[in-house]
């Protein structure tokens, strides 16, 4: 697997508060990230952060280019907007651990 450009930031959501992402997928994706040489950011639950208007979301939204492994892109964009820090249209890729396979998500995150 090729290495991500250092300027592309990676964010992994663990969906820990209600666990709608299948356990095997989120474990598998985390394992692949940990297997790579990439530095990355991980959070317990983007939904919880948005509910509490966590200021860190703003830092993520401003850190493009960014790839986010979480769930449905509509949801992820909606959560950032709700926290008053909309994700820009360009420079954001959202990988969906609810429906994509471990390999699809990991490849999407770690592609060059």
């Amino acid at each position, binding site marked *: 697997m090729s290495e991500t450009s250092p300027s592309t930031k990676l964010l992994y959501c663990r969906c*820990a508060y209600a666990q709608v992402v299948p356990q095997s997928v989120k474990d598998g994706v*985390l394992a692949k990230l940990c297997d790579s040489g990439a*530095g990355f*950011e*991980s*959070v*317990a639950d983007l939904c919880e952060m948005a509910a509490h208007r966590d200021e860190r979301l703003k830092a993520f939204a401003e850190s493009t280019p960014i790839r986010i492994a979480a*769930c449905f892109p509509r949801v992820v964009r909606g959560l950032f907007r709700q926290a008053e820090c909309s994700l820009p249209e360009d420079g954001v890729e959202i990988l969906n651990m609810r429906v994509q396979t471990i390999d699809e998500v990991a490849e999407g995150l770690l592609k060059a």
Partner: protein
Amino acid sequence: MITHTARPLRVVLYEGNGAIALSAPARAQVMAALLDKGYAVTRATAQGASGFPHDDRSLLVLGQFQNQQAPDLEDATGKVTIEARDITGLETLDIVSLVEKARGNKPMNQPGTWKPWFPVIDYSRCTNCMQCLSFCLFDVYGVSKDGKIQVQNNDNCKTNCPACSRVCPEVAIMFPKHQSGPINGEQVNEEDLRREKMKVDISSLLGGDIYARLRDRSEAAKSRFSKERSADKALEERKKCLTKMAQDGFIPAEVLASLPSPDEIMRKAEEAQAKAQAALNGNGNPA
């Protein structure tokens, strides 16, 4: 606005220069255990840190440092407290307890204590019709300064109740922690839009086609609206609708049990309509 974010520190798993990398399985295990406890974790490698700005006031840097000696670290700006701990030879559970100890008794939001259950609006679909505002009895929705529907009090939302998503004619309301689509945020397809069960006729809840009238700015329409609206009918219809949703298993029975009193429902409905009317009139003031 919700303000009870409690995130006392961010954990950095440092594997850059001067530290020995963990094995990949050990690394994944430690990260998963900390995330499942509610911590945010950065993995910093020789390739670089994660590249995100470190906006946290408190960082706890974990690493297998040379000579098992954690370095003294200081933030040049003086704004961030940085502590480092050596984790050489520690098992995952020991690392988690080390982090918990470093946090001390500072409060933290933790998974398992609360379910982030609240509506999220897909503004690419929303037409700002305000039906959700009028429907919700728990003041979850409000209107922004520029007249847009907004989720304002998400902590008021009743856990596992996605009722307002059925009211939205555009399928624009998502509940991220819902199991099935399109409410969980899945792409909306034509069938979803047609599906009768997605739709609850809000006008019947409020006694007449109020929204068409609200949009009609003529005085005659408005006065007809106020004459025709029947409080009793509205209340009855709303209850019927919620009971039906509970019977279908769509909303939990607790939601019905926790409904406000009839008077309170009517008062809330009046308030919501005034807000909706003001927003639809585009002047911020109830007409």
